[in-house]
C-alpha cells in the first residue's frame, strides 16, 4: 500500500470508511464462514487471506512502507469493529499480528526484506512457539534449549498449545540459550521453518473435538544463527512487549456479545422470553455486557488519544471471559436436555449448539494468561498490594 492510500484512509470520514470496509466484506467474505464458532484452518479461510492480501488489507496495522494499511488507532478500531460485527473469521494471522510487528521493531534489514513480503503474499504462514508442557502461566520457566554450534543453533524441546501449527510452515519461538541466572534472562527469539529436519507436529484434539492446537517437538533441529531476532538472550523483553500490543484485543467484548446473540436466538426459538425467570437472568447478562462494552470503549479512547494501555487492561480480559462463560452457562441451562447433546437447537439465525458453546467458552479464562494470573497482575501492578 502506498503512503498516499494510507493518508487517504486516515483522512476519510469515519462513517464513510466504515461503509467502505463493510461493503468490501459483504462483497468478498464468504457468507457461510460468517460467525464461525471455531477457529478456521487454512483450507477453510486461506482464500480469504489471499483476498485480503490482494486488496492490500491484510495488515491494517503495519506502516505503509512495509506494505501495511498504516491505519491510525481510530481507523484501526473501526476496521476491526466492522469485521467483528460482520462475523469475519480470523485467518492464521500470527505472521500479521505478531511476527510482522516483531520484525518491524526488532528485525534486521535483511530479516525485514526477507520475511515481510512473504507474509504479505501468504507464502509464510506462522505459528507461535511459546508455551511448553511445564511452562504455562509461568512462561519464563521454558526449557526448550538452543545450543550454539558454529553458525547455527541446535534446538531440542517440546512446545505446546501451538495454535494452527498444522497450517503453518514457519514458527517463531522462544528458546533457552542460557541456563544460568534469572530465568527471564536466558531466552532468545528464533524464526524456524517447520520443514527443518527434526521437527514433528502433533495435533491436540480439544474438548470441542477440534484440532485448533498442536504440540511441536524439536529433536536436534539446526537453525541458522541469522534467524535470531533482537539478539541472543533478549527474547523475553521482546516477547512481553509484543503481548502488550495485543492486550486490548483480548478485552474486546466480541465473544461475549456473540454468545449473547446466540442465546437470544435460542431464547426466541424456544419461547424463553415468556419466562420471567429467564428474562431476569438474561437481563443481568445483557447489562454485564453493556457495562463491559462501556468499559471497553473507555480503554479504546486511550488508544484513540494515542496513549498506552497498561496492566489495568487485565480487568477487561477477566470481565469479558467470565461474562462469556456465564452466558454459555445460562444457554446450557436454558437448553434443558440440549445442554447434554452435541447437536444444536434450530433457530431463525441457524443452529445454536448450547453444549458446544458452553465447552467452547471454557478455555478463554485459561489462555492468554489465566484469569488467576490476570488477578495477580491487577493486585500487584494496579492496586499495589504487598508481595
Amino acid at each position, binding site marked *: 500500500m502506498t503512503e498516499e492510500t494510507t493518508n487517504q484512509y486516515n483522512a476519510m470520514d469515519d462513517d464513510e470508511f466504515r461503509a467502505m470496509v463493510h461493503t468490501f466484506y459483504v462483497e468478498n467474505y464468504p457468507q457461510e464462514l460468517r460467525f464461525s464458532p471455531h477457529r478456521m484452518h487454512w483450507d477453510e479461510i486461506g482464500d480469504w487471506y489471499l483476498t485480503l492480501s490482494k486488496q492490500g488489507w491484510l495488515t491494517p496495522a503495519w506502516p505503509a512502507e512495509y506494505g501495511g494499511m498504516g491505519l491510525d488507532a481510530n481507523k484501526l478500531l473501526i476496521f476491526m469493529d466492522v469485521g467483528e460485527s460482520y462475523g469475519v473469521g480470523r485467518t492464521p494471522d500470527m505472521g500479521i499480528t505478531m511476527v510482522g510487528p516483531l520484525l518491524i521493531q526488532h528485525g534486521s534489514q535483511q530479516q525485514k526484506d526477507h520475511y515481510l513480503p512473504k507474509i504479505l503474499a501468504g507464502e509464510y504462514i506462522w505459528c507461535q512457539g511459546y508455551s511448553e508442557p511445564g511452562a504455562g502461566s509461568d512462561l519464563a520457566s521454558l526449557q526448550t534449549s538452543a545450543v550454539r554450534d558454529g553458525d547455527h543453533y541446535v534446538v531440542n524441546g517440546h512446545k505446546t498449545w501451538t495454535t494452527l501449527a498444522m497450517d503453518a510452515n514457519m514458527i517463531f519461538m522462544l528458546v533457552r540459550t542460557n541456563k544460568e541466572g534469572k530465568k527471564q534472562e536466558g531466552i532468545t527469539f528464533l524464526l524456524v521453518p517447520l520443514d527443518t529436519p527434526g521437527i514433528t507436529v502433533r495435533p491436540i484434539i480439544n474438548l470441542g473435538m477440534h484440532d485448533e492446537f498442536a504440540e511441536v517437538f524439536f529433536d536436534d533441529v539446526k537453525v541458522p544463527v541469522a534467524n535470531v531476532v533482537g539478539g541472543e538472550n533478549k527474547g523475553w523483553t521482546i516477547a512481553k512487549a509484543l503481548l502488550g500490543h495485543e492486550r486490548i484485543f483480548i478485552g474486546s467484548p466480541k465473544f461475549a456479545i456473540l454468545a449473547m446473540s446466540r442465546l437470544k436466538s435460542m431464547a426466541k426459538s424456544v419461547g424463553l*422470553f415468556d419466562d420471567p425467570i429467564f*428474562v*431476569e437472568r*438474561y*437481563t*443481568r447478562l*445483557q*447489562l454485564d455486557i*453493556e*457495562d*463491559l462494552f*462501556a*468499559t471497553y*470503549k*473507555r*480503554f479504546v*479512547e*486511550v488508544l484513540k*488519544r494515542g*496513549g498506552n*494501555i*497498561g496492566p*489495568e487492561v487485565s*480487568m477487561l480480559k*477477566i*470481565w469479558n471471559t467470565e461474562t462469556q462463560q456465564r452466558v454459555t452457562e445460562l444457554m446450557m441451562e436454558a437448553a434443558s436436555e440440549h445442554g447434554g447433546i452435541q447437536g444444536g437447537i434450530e433457530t431463525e439465525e441457524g443452529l445454536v449448539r448450547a453444549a458446544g458453546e458452553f465447552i467452547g467458552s471454557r478455555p478463554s479464562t485459561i489462555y492468554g494468561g489465566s484469569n*488467576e494470573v490476570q*488477578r*495477580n497482575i*491487577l*493486585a*500487584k501492578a*494496579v*492496586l*499495589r*498490594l*504487598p*508481595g
Partner: protein
Amino acid sequence: MEDISLQSRIDVLTEQQVLIQDSAVAFIAQDEELKKTRESRFVQPGYDQQTWQEMAELGWLGFLIPEQYGGIGLGFDDLHPVLIQLGKGLLPAPFVATAVVAASVLVNCDNEAIKKDRLPALVSGAWKPALAWQETQGQMSVEAEQLRIVDGKLSGKKAFVPDAGGADDFIVSAGGDKGTELYLVNKGATGLTIDYEQRIDGGFYARLSFDQVDVGELLAGTDRAEQVLESALDEGRVAASVELLGVMTRSLEITVDYLNQRVQFDKPIGSFQAIQHKTVDLFILSEISRSVVLQTIALLDGDASAHDRAVGASQVKARCGDAALQITKSAIQLHGGIGYTDEANIGLYLKKAMYLASWLGNATAHRARYAELTL
C-alpha cells in the same frame, strides 16, 4: 489515601472539571474524619445545615439550574466530580434529593412565577423543597394513585420522602380525574401531618399524611406532570449512582490502605492471594461502575430521548446499587472485626450504600425496568 481508581490512568478531565474536582476534594478534606457526618446521624434533619450553606456558597446548588433562575446552568459532565466527592466524603447534605431531583422538577415545570421566585432561593441555600411522589414500597411508576385531589383538596399519603425535616415546602404529585398533577405545598399547610423514620445511614425518610390539604401552587398539569417527574427521577437515579461511585471508590481506598497496614500471621493481610483476588474483583466492579457512570452522564447531557435516558438511568442505577453494596459489604469482611464496629468509618460507607442503593429503585427494580424498556 492513595487514589487507586483508573481515572488518572485512563480518563481525561476537561480543565473546568479539574477545577471543580479540586474544589470538591478540598471541601470534603475539611472533614476527613467524618465528624460532621457522625454528628448529624439520627438527629433531625439528619444532615448538617452549615454544610448545606457552604455548598451554596461554592455555587454547587445551582449547577443544574439555568442562569436565568440564578444558577450556573452546567451539565452532569461538570457536576459529576462533585457528586463523586459527596460520596467519598459521605457529606451530610441532601444534595441529590434537593439540588438534583427537586430542582429538576422545578426547572422543568410550567409555573414561571414559582421558578423566578424560588429557584434563586434554592441556589442560595435559603429555601429547600422536597419531592413527595412515592406512595408504595418499590414503586416505579410515577402515576399518583393514592394521593387524590378532590375539589382542590389533597387527601392521602406519601412515603419515603428523604430529608424532609429541613425542607420548607413539598413538591407533591397527586391524582385528579384526568391524571397526575404536580403541586407545591407548604410544609405547614393545615391538614398535613409528617412522621419521620430513621434511615440506616442516619438520615430520615418522611411519611406525609394529607387530610383535605389545600393544593397550593400548580407546578405541572396532567399534560406534563408525569414526564417532568420521570425525567427528574431519572436524573436523581443517575446522580445517586455517581454518589454511589464515590462511596465505593473511597471504601476501596480505605480497604486497600487497611490491607497494607494490618498484619496477621506475620504478613500484611493484603499479601494473601485470596484477599488479593477478592479485592481485585471489587476493584473491577468499581471500574465497571465508573464506565457506566461516564457513559450515562454523557447521555443525560446529550439529546437522548426520554426512553433512552430511562434505559441509561436504570442501567447505571442497577450497576452502581449492586456494586456499591457488594464492595462495602466485602470491605467490612476484609476489615475483620474492626469493620463491624460503629467506630470504624468503613461501616458508614456500607450504610450510605444501603440507603442510596435502595432509594429511587434498587438494582432488582431497575433490572426489571431495563428489561421492560428494552426487550
